[in-house]
């Protein structure tokens, strides 16, 4: 069986255990994937508390629907899909609230969010290896200003290291569509970055 692709089989073993009633086994899945999900939510929402809340909700949803798990779908992709849908709900809610708010200082002139990621202090020491703190902050801001349709595949590709075909699966898009969106995201970023 050496030539066989074994990806995801460990997850299935755990899922089977949970379905058999060994609820505590679900902890293994939480520990395995929580950093990935939290990271994606944090990158998408730019807020630690919201990222934590969405991560919790994501695992709860998966737990409740575990009996519906499709073996031809990677568990990690299922988690990403659910997390992104929850993030979308939050962002939609925020846009509605902002529409009715009198505080317009939250948006830039072109109507896009001007969110700045709350970068943990540990990362600042690492970023000295890059062009500099300002470069990274500037890129962070530009990424956050991207439309969600471009930002999400860009984050999945460059911050979650997910292959294009898996991004297509997670977002329910064709492979070509994913590639075009990532290309457009990079083009937009570059044009702004090189100004």
């Amino acid at each position, binding site marked *: 069986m050496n030539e066989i692709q074994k990806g995801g089989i460990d997850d299935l073993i755990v899922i089977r255990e949970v379905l058999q009633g060994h609820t505590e086994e679900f902890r293994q899945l*939480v520990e395995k994937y929580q950093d990935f999900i*939290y990271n994606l939510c944090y990158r998408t929402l730019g807020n630690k508390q919201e990222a934590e809340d969405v991560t919790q909700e994501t695992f709860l949803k998966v737990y409740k629907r575990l009996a519906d798990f499709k073996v031809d779908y990677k568990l990690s992709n299922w988690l990403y899909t659910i997390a992104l849908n929850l993030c979308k709900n939050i962002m939609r809610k925020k846009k509605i609230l902002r529409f009715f708010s009198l505080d317009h200082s939250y948006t830039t002139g072109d109507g896009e969010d001007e969110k700045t990621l709350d970068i943990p202090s540990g990362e600042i020491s690492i970023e000295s290896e890059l062009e500099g703190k300002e470069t990274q902050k500037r890129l962070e801001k530009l990424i956050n200003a991207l439309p969600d349709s471009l930002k999400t595949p860009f984050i999945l590709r460059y911050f979650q290291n997910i292959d294009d075909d898996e991004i297509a699966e997670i977002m329910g898009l064709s492979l070509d569509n994913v590639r075009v969106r990532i290309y457009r995201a990079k083009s937009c970023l570059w044009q702004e970055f090189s100004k």
Partner: protein
Amino acid sequence: MTMKNIPLTQEEEKTLETYLDGEMGSEEKINVEEMLRNSARLQGYLDFLKNVKGMSQMSAMKPAPLDLTAKIMTRLSTVRATSTLRPASLAVRWAPLFATACFFLAFGLFLGKSRLQSGTVSVRFFLDAPRAQTVALAGDFTDWKPVSLKPHGKEWELTLDVPHGRHEYVFILNGRRFVIDPRSQDVVEDNKGDFYSILDTKNTGKKINV
């Protein structure tokens, strides 16, 4: 927009990304380096791409808060456990099967009588894999030869006569990916680290259609 930041074509962009990832042959690499020397636009984009990749590598993983696992597990205890949720499809299918079996038993005409006497039992296997192109099953009761399952709605199914006893089996998706049956009675790991589902016909579990 200046000449310097005119958007790259998808092909140009892909070439530079391949170059940066070190996935380029030596001859092609020389050509790209020549292009880079002659184009401030391409060099500018390459620098930008380095920044993006550098940033993503350095700050890719933001660890979740340390107490997040505990919080999730605590919340799980307040919701209905999945294990108690018998899939609706199973319940729906088994109700008429059970009724039919009772009917035949009552008249002494149990459908699988002859098979039971010959030491086999009819087992219905099914797998929820709506996007799979093909699904097969291999087990000790098929001499490990793959037997195809047939699509049935979103599921795949197969009914086989299996000798009484404890058996190992595995599903094969698209001819290459082996997966256990997530609803199997038990699993076993062999000395190579491969997992197999267990079917024990003495344990009249939910999958056995006698």
